[in-house]
C-alpha cells in the first residue's frame, strides 16, 4: 500500500513548507494593499503586487464546515476511516483545508474552536487541526 500523499513544494510554496517543518504556519500579507492570503502565491491575488511578506499565524481558528469521510478516495486513507475533513477559518482571516485530529468525529461541529498541530508525512510536516486543549 502506498502512503498518504506528501505535498511537493514549488517555488511559490517552498518557504511555507520549510516553516511547517519548524511547526510554523505562514500566510502571505501584501505590503501594497494589506490583504492576507493562503495558499502561497507569487503575487497578491487582490492587487497583483509582488511585495508580499510572510506572517506567522496564531494557530487558532474555527471550523467553517466539515464532513466525516467514510469512503476513502484512495487506499492510503482507508486506515484512517472515518476521518474529518474540514475548512478551517484561521484567526487571521484566511481559510485552509485540514483534517481534525485527536477528537471523536461525533464531537466536531461548525464554529468549533481548533488549534493547529502538525502531522508527519515522510520528511514533511503538514498542518492539521485539533480541538483546543482544555486548561
Amino acid at each position, binding site marked *: 500500500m502506498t502512503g498518504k500523499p506528501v505535498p511537493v513544494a514549488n517555488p511559490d510554496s517552498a518557504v511555507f513548507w520549510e516553516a511547517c517543518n519548524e511547526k510554523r504556519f505562514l500566510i502571505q500579507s501584501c505590503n501594497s494593499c494589506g490583504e492576507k492570503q493562503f*495558499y502561497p502565491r507569487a503575487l497578491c491575488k487582490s492587487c497583483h503586487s509582488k511585495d508580499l511578506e510572510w506572517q506567522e499565524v496564531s494557530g487558532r481558528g474555527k471550523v467553517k464546515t466539515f*464532513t466525516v469521510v467514510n*469512503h476513502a478516495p*484512495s487506499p492510503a486513507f482507508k486506515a484512517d476511516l472515518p476521518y474529518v475533513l474540514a475548512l478551517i477559518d484561521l484567526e487571521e482571516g484566511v481559510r485552509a483545508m485540514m483534517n481534525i485530529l485527536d477528537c471523536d468525529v461525533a464531537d466536531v461541529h461548525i464554529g468549533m474552536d481548533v488549534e493547529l498541530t502538525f502531522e508527519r508525512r515522510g520528511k514533511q510536516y503538514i498542518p492539521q487541526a485539533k480541538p483546543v486543549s482544555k486548561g
Partner: protein
Amino acid sequence: MKKAIITGAYDTDVGELPGSSCMGLHADAALGAIADAGLNKSDIDGVLCAYSFTEPHLMLSSVFCEYMGLQPKFNAAIVVGGATACIMVMQAASLVESGQCRNVLVVTGDNRLTGMAKGGAVATLAKVGHGQFEHPYGMSVPAAYALVATHYMNEYGVTSEQLASISVTAREHAMMNSKAHRQTPITIEDVLNSRMIASPLHVLDCCLISDGGAAIVVSAADSGGDRPKTSIEIMGTGQGHTHEHIMAAPSLSDFGCKQAARTAFERAGVTAKDIDVAEIYDSFTITLLVELESIGFFERGEAGPACLDGALKIGGRLPCNTHGGLMSYGHSGAAGGMFHVVEAVRQLRHEAEGRQVEDSQLAFVHGDGGILSAHCSLVLGRV
C-alpha cells in the same frame, strides 16, 4: 449576427458497456448526431471535444478527428469538468454566430465504468483537489461537496430527507426512461439507509459512474439542409467562475451559477419563471439544491421543502432532470453534462417518449465543473 440552432442530438447506450472504448463511444455519438441533423460527414466544419479518463490525451479533439477521418476548419478540446458540455455548446454557438463555421459537431464520451480499475474514476476525480493543500487531506469529490452540504444544512435548515427526495425524483424519472443506467425503484428511506460516503452524503446522494457518449450538432440557422427534426434555438448562454478549489471559494452559499444563469436569461430575454423544463447538473443531491437556489428557481431555504413536495417531478412546478440525471440516467465524464443537453433537445422537440413535459417551449440547461467552481447555463427554445 447569425442565429445558432441545435440541429442534431444523440446519445449512445448508457451504463455498463463492456467492449466500449472512449473513441468508439465518441464515434457512435457523433454519427448519431450527424444523422439526426440530416447532415453528412462533409457538412461538419467545426469539431469540439472534451476530455477522457480512459484515453487521456493532450489533443483529444485532434485524436478524434483523425479517428473519424475529419479535417475541420475549427477544432479544439475544452476541459472545464462538469461545465464542459455546456461551455462547448456556448462555444459552438459563438462559432456559427460569428460565421466561422456552419455546422459544429460537439462530441463527448468515455468508458470510465468498464475502462478503469475499480475506484479508478474516484481516485482520478479526487485530483481536482489542490495537490499541496487539499489532496494530502484525503479530499474526495463527494467529501468536498459534503462540505457545502454541511454548511447548507447548518445555515438554511436543509435536511437529509430533502436531499434524498432529489435522488428519488431522479430515479422516478429514470424509471420512465428505458435507456437509463439505474431503474430500480428507491425510496427516501433507501437513500438515508444507503452507505454513508461523506456525511451528510450517502451513496444514493451521489452520481453514477457509467460508460456512454453523447453529441450534438450546432448549426447556423441559415445553413440549409433537410433538417428532418425540429430545430432548437440556442437563445442565451452565460458563464460564471469563482474558484477552482473549494478551500478558495469566496462563498459557500452562492456560486458562479448565479452569474451564469443571469447572463443566459438576459441574453435570451426570459426569466427563471418562464422555463418549462430544466436539466441541471446533479453530480450530488446537494449540487442540484444549491444550483436551484443560487440560480433563483427557488428562494433561499425553499428548494429543499419544494423538492420533497414534488416540485421537480414531471408535472411539478419545475420538471427537472427528466431523463434521470447524473444520479440515475448516467454519468460518463463530459458526456454526463451532454446528456442534459440531449434531454433538453428531446423535451423541446416533444420526443421524450414516456416522460414528456407537456408542450415544453423553453428549457434551461446548466453544467457545473469542479466543486461548484465553473458554471455554464444555456437557455434553449423551440423554434
